[in-house]
């Protein structure tokens, strides 16, 4: 149904100590989907993203982006880490954090200039955070911090976006704001992969889903595979969600 494969993962296995966190993952993500990765705690959802992005070193397996190794395609990929992964008391402003999204294209030593500032301001505008641009980041609410992170990824102007639980600890307004931006990205032909926790909203927000619990359980269009059978396989217990028609 979809044409190109944006992300291809082959035989990916990752272990922290002795126990494998991810076991033999094969995954193909078509271009232009808005995909959720779901699974219980410790299923390796964040690990999967981090391994694809080269933050963690896998024991085995390979990742390709549009048919080429990830290392050659970095500029096509943007990452939104978990909000809790950084120290928000760091002495810097919202605008400064968003500007960091331009550092990759600048390369070593070169400083961000007017062009980069303009791009950062535009991204802030998109996530509705322009009035807070000079705000110290510790004085932002959780939802606002998440939007700053999203803006930082938007500045990268990538084709593929990986997001690690962007809806964690944000209020309903921010959640809607974020999902609207994600849907806009999809409309623009971008591929968005999101680690997601709230099963109830999967059918509403996403069109593609991957069930993960150390092994890959299933992956495909939400309307085909988001069912009690796969949920039970992933979560172990007899899981029932009511899918609204």
């Amino acid at each position, binding site marked *: 149904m979809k044409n190109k494969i944006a992300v291809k993962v082959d035989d990916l296995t990752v272990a922290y100590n002795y126990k494998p966190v991810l076991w033999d993952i094969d995954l193909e993500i078509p271009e232009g989907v808005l995909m959720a990765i779901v699974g219980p705690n410790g299923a390796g959802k964040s690990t999967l993203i981090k391994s694809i992005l080269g933050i963690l070193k896998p024991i085995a397996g390979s990742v390709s982006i549009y048919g080429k190794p990830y290392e050659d395609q970095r500029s096509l990929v943007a990452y939104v880490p978990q909000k809790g992964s950084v*120290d928000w008391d760091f002495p*810097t402003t919202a605008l400064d*954090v968003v500007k960091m999204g331009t550092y990759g294209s600048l390369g070593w030593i070169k400083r961000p200039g007017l062009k980069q500032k303009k791009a950062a301001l535009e991204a802030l505008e998109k996530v509705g955070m322009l009035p807070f641009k000079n705000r110290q980041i510790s004085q932002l609410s959780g939802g606002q911090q998440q939007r700053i992170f999203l803006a930082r990824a938007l500045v990268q102007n990538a084709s593929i976006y990986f997001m690690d639980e962007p809806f964690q600890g944000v209020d309903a307004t921010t959640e809607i704001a974020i999902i609207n931006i994600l849907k806009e990205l999809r409309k623009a032909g971008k591929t968005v992969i999101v680690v997601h926790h709230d099963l109830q909203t999967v059918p509403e927000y996403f069109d593609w889903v991957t069930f993960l619990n150390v092994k890959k359980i299933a992956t495909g269009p939400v309307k085909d595979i988001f069912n009690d059978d796969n949920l039970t396989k992933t979560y172990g217990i007899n899981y029932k969600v009511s899918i609204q028609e």
Partner: protein
Amino acid sequence: MGTAILGAITGMLGSFAVLRKQSLLGDAISHAALPGIAIAFLITGAKDSNTLLLGALVSGLIGTFWIRGIITKTHLKSDTALGLILSLFFGFGMLLLTYIQKQPNANQAGLDKYLFGQAATLVERDVWLMAIVTGICLLVLLLFWKEFKILLFDADYTKTLGFNTKTIDILITSFIVLAIVLGLQTVGVVLMSAMLLAPAAAARQWTNSLGVMVILAAIFGAFSGVFGTAISATQNNLSTGPVIVIVASIFVLLSFVFSPSRGLLFKQIRFIKNRRDLELHKTLAFMYNIAETHEDITHPHAIKILNNFQGFTKGTLQKLVHKNYVKLDGNMWYMTEEGFKTASNLYNQQTTGDNE
């Protein structure tokens, strides 16, 4: 002069150590440098400060990379690794020092200066060396400012942007080690980490910008160096290192108490003021509810009814009168137009204020 430069460079680099939450790393590095000094002396048999510092640099670097190795390769937490390496190297260093002291070498006296430092042993050449290293450090800082900043804030993300985070990391750490080694002669092994941390901790209190923080830390460090040396020079036998550290700590103390945005004093003042304001508002709101029951808002009421209301005191009433929200008439009170208007807006203000 030398101590001022030293204070500046350690202050700058200390900012990075503090923000990376690697405060104890400095302590471990300086202690790890001690066996290097002793070994360098044993090999050369001379007390040439450059050779000794080279030894300190080598063993400091070895200690640092051991710590990193332990953290990445084993299950041990970083504080355990730091503590382990610190005491191992320091113990070994002390062992060597006592061994050296028993040697029949006239030169050996004075090696223990490296424990607590002695600025008087600095010669012009040492100061030049410090100035040059500080210059290089400043240049590197300016060149890689962007890289340092983003690594400090979000290392994983930095990796996805295609930067080699290991290179940046090694660069920062090497300069921290270099600064510490330079300071050993003046401040000494035991107290060196305070030089790294105190100016940075003080500077953090005054600003929310990384650039300003680094500059402030450099200034605080330099002043600590100058004052500390000056004070220790007025007294015989007063070690410079401890005095400098005490001066730096006074900067920290003052910063914690007096900084306008993060300081304890202003926080407490703001806290009390906010409570008072709220108390006042609550009382006004209560009066507003009573006044509302009458068609004429300026209808007088007995002060006695207010006694049932918690938070009401003579003081708050006086303040309301002072603000012209309420007027008193014997033991009756009545609201003014202005007070009524303010009170009716209070609730709205409070909620919009929160949403901001």
